[in-house]
């Protein structure tokens, strides 16, 4: 079943290339829907009491190089898979409603991107993981570069062109990814006896020596931190976020940033336990710096896209913080927060499209008064905003609570610093909402209700937010076993030595 789900979006994309132009969007949308359907079944069939892999597939792929085609899901990945398919379905449906030019290539790339992302979440072989991780970049390179729009940029910054911004993004992320590739190969060759050994579970069962772990750890950390992006390696983010086509940015920001955080839980903690313990505080520092820097930047930006972008930096900081608390509650919170953030940031991006339709750009200082004739839009936007600032009662609040709880018990100082971030989040989220929806309406801006098709897609995502707020347990109880296993691996490893 997971195999079908994995390859279906790519197949749908290829079929979309063959059918007449008119039908291409709908073929892709049906493919994305079927993948979503399969993902829902995966969640329903998921057994919460098992810490190990479920639905595992294990085939030989390149025997001479020791690479296996190994897939499977566990409590950490199952909801990320669901998140991926939900957001991709939303983005594909959105693009089908508002078909871009050169639709066939667009939907092929979108399908390829979904397959690659699902592959990264499902892969249980280290090299297969790296392969899918790198493969994700190709479709986004084309999607951002070809369908992106020029952005006027800040004052004195000049116009930002999609092609330049995209190359910057790719170079940044691939530098990390290639280091990870080298690290992965080194891990497999050192661990293997004769033929390299890349299976994550077997690497975790018998980790490398502490000296090797120490340098390979940073190769992996580089890839994941750039992807998130974390503070200091976020340089590609502002340009890429401002030129990207928004429906694509919804899945990019909603899912791809999570692949980095997921990589820490899936690969780094189990495979490099000694290095994880050793560098725990360095990573916590980076996480706190991301939270504070992201939040502060988010409330100084005038571009709506950048508010969302920097808030992602802050949110991913929280997730990293939870993971590197190295405690079960922190890791549970991190998994929950990954899903939360994805499901919040995607409708926010789609709402930015609607705002741009009415105001001609994403500069929030030039918006205003949009709520006047659009109560539904205002209500949807308000729910998204509340979730973004993690108001008590939202699932985001639960996630951040778990994370901070974990960090408090592990390292108090980091938790105190991080909690400032929550207050800042309230400020930038409300500022975005107020500027856009309230205040006096400037000349040349029209307050219009959201169209029913767009409204249906956004409401679907908002319904997910509400559902999660009502019952976050659905994720927590399934993630608990696997997340606990991931962080406990670091403890038992060190105890064994």
């Amino acid at each position, binding site marked *: 079943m997971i195999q079908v789900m994995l390859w279906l979006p790519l197949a749908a994309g290829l079929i979309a290339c063959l059918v007449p132009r008119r039908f291409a969007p709908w073929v892709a949308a049906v493919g994305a829907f079927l993948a979503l359907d399969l993902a829902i079944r995966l969640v329903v069939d998921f057994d919460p009491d098992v810490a190990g892999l479920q639905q595992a597939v294990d085939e030989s792929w390149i025997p001479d190089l020791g*690479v296996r085609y190994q897939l499977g899901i566990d409590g950490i990945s199952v909801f990320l898979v669901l998140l991926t398919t939900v957001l991709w379905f939303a983005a594909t449906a959105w693009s089908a409603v508002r078909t871009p030019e050169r639709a066939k290539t667009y939907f092929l790339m979108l399908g390829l991107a979904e397959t690659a992302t699902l592959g990264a979440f499902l892969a249980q072989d280290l090299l297969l993981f790296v392969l899918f991780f*790198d493969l994700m970049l190709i479709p986004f390179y084309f999607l951002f570069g070809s369908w992106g729009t020029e952005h006027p940029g800040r004052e004195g910054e000049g116009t930002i062109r999609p092609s330049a911004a995209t190359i910057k993004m790719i170079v940044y992320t691939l530098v990390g990814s290639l*280091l990870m*590739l*080298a690290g992965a190969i080194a891990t497999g060759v050192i661990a293997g006896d004769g033929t390299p050994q890349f299976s994550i579970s077997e690497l975790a069962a018998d980790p490398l020596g502490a000296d090797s772990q120490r340098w390979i750890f940073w190769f992996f950390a580089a890839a994941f931190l750039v992807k998130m992006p974390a503070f200091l390696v976020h340089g590609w983010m502002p340009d890429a976020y401002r030129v990207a086509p928004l429906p694509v940015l919804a899945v990019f920001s909603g899912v791809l940033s999570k692949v980095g955080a997921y990589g820490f839980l899936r690969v780094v903690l189990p495979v490099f336990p000694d290095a994880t313990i050793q560098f725990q505080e360095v990573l916590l520092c980076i996480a706190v710096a991301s939270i504070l820097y992201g939040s502060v930047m988010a409330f100084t930006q005038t571009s709506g896209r950048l508010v969302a972008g920097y808030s992602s930096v802050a949110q991913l900081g929280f997730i990293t913080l939870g993971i590197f608390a190295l405690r079960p509650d922190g890791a549970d919170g991190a998994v929950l927060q990954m899903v939360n953030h994805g499901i919040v940031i995607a409708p926010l991006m789609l709402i930015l499209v609607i705002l741009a339709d009415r105001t001609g750009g994403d500069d929030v200082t030039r918006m205003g008064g949009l709520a006047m004739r659009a109560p539904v839009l205002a209500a949807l936007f308000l729910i998204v905003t509340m979730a973004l600032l993690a108001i008590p009662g939202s699932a985001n609040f639960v996630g951040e609570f778990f994370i901070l709880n974990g960090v408090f018990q592990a390292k108090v100082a980091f938790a105190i610093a991080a909690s400032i971030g929550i207050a800042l989040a309230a400020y930038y989220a409300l500022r975005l909402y107020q500027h856009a929806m309230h205040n006096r309406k400037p000349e040349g801006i029209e307050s219009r209700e959201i169209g029913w098709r767009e409204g249906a897609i956004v409401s679907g995502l908002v319904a997910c937010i509400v559902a999660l707020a009502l019952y976050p347990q659905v994720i927590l109880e399934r993630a608990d076993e696997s997340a606990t296993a991931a962080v406990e691996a670091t403890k038992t490893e060190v105890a064994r030595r």
Partner: protein
Amino acid sequence: MTEFNAPDIDYAGLSPIIALTVGLVVVLMVGLVAKNRFVNAYLTLVALATTAGLAIWQWGEQEDLVAGALRLDELALAAALIATFAAAVATVLSIREPAADEAGHGAFAGLVLGSVLGMTVLAQAQNLVAFFIGLELLSIPLYVLCGSARRREGSLESGLKYLIIGSLGSATLLYGFAFLYGASGSTDYAAIAEALGPGGEGDDTLVLIGTAMAAVGLAFKASLAPFHQWTPDVYQGAPTPVTAFMAVATKAAALIALARLFEVALGPVAVDWDAALAALAVASIAVGNVGALGQDSIKRLLGYSGIAQAGYMLAGVVVFTEVGLEAMVFYLAAYTLMNLAAFVAVVARERETEHGDDIRALEGIGRSRPWLAWPLTIGFLALAGFPGTSGFIGKLFLIEATVDADYTWLGIAIVIGTMVSLAYYLRVLSAVWMRPEPEPLPAIAGGAPLSTIRDTEPGESGAPFELPRSVARGASRCALVVGAGVICAAATIAFGVYPDPLVDWASAAGESLAPFA
């Protein structure tokens, strides 16, 4: 001493060489009579297909030929197959090439076949004399081919430059061989290895000088830095199908011959050369990738990128393990496919725009010419080592080999080189997909230098054909050219998704070399 013992002649083992020689003569002769460009191309393809078929037939044989001067094994046959494939693609690309029209199709195709013959001999050589014969047989036709667009100054310059630098390389190599002969008293690889090995009477100084000069000579041929300076100029000046052929086939033959020379004959003194070759590899990776950054000419860019790629592949020889050699052979095959896929669009656009091989010629073809743009894109993504292509598997294989042999730093050098390379590969791709196609230039007299040079003026031409512009324009839509690109690109993807057959093929080639057998 009246009896003369002629060596046994193994016709089956020599059959690929014989087929090439016969094909060469036939094509040359027919070219004198038949003035139809398709007849020549067809005969050339038949000769190449026969050669490839015979090579596949001989696959798995391992024996000495011609009194031990040549070695028939999978490694040599792998080089022959790569060279014939590259030649076949080059033949298809050159069907309407102005240079081939000027030089005469028979001569042009004959030279290509002669060069393939040289490559086959070179890859099989296990004797210093046979090695040198193969190398010259490879090089001399290429000097001529580079200069075959006689009406274009750049082409003549390219041919002359290649002749001078190539001769310098050959002379250095030959001088080095003399020292090796002096040190070991033999020209035969096995005897050299024995003389240099423990208990042999090899002379250290002579061996060192000989090895160094042989390495320098081969570095000229395989365009390894710092002996690469000719590469971008020659690549840019030569007719593009010739460049495409040279970029892959010469590299394959030279690297495989280098592997055989160093790992068989000089294997016992590996400690003398491994650091030097590692330095060459790192220098090539650095120079190639940095040099390609600012290039606007795609042929120059691919020239520099080829230097870097040769550096990656040389790492497979440096590690001196079976896995290393297998990785190199795999990468050579993958590189052949992806580089040719990239060249096809350059050839096609060169004929239909005013911009020649400038990056502007490729702008916007993602919209207007998807069948050219996709193979180009796949080729460039593979060169940059993106997953889903054989380029990724090739890099994976090479890095695994370096780490396995405790040359991790060389693996990291490959990775860093790849990072730099993204900047120029992606620059081309963004021109292809993210820029609008430029408006065609107005036809002002003298305003389009390249096109005026391409046009043959009737009357005063010594060329057998006249090539009106309209023909050159229509030709670009030729299905054969596009088809060649699509095949290379499809194979690049196929071997990226299911690399097993190619891995097995490369493993067979790697295992066949004496030190690892």
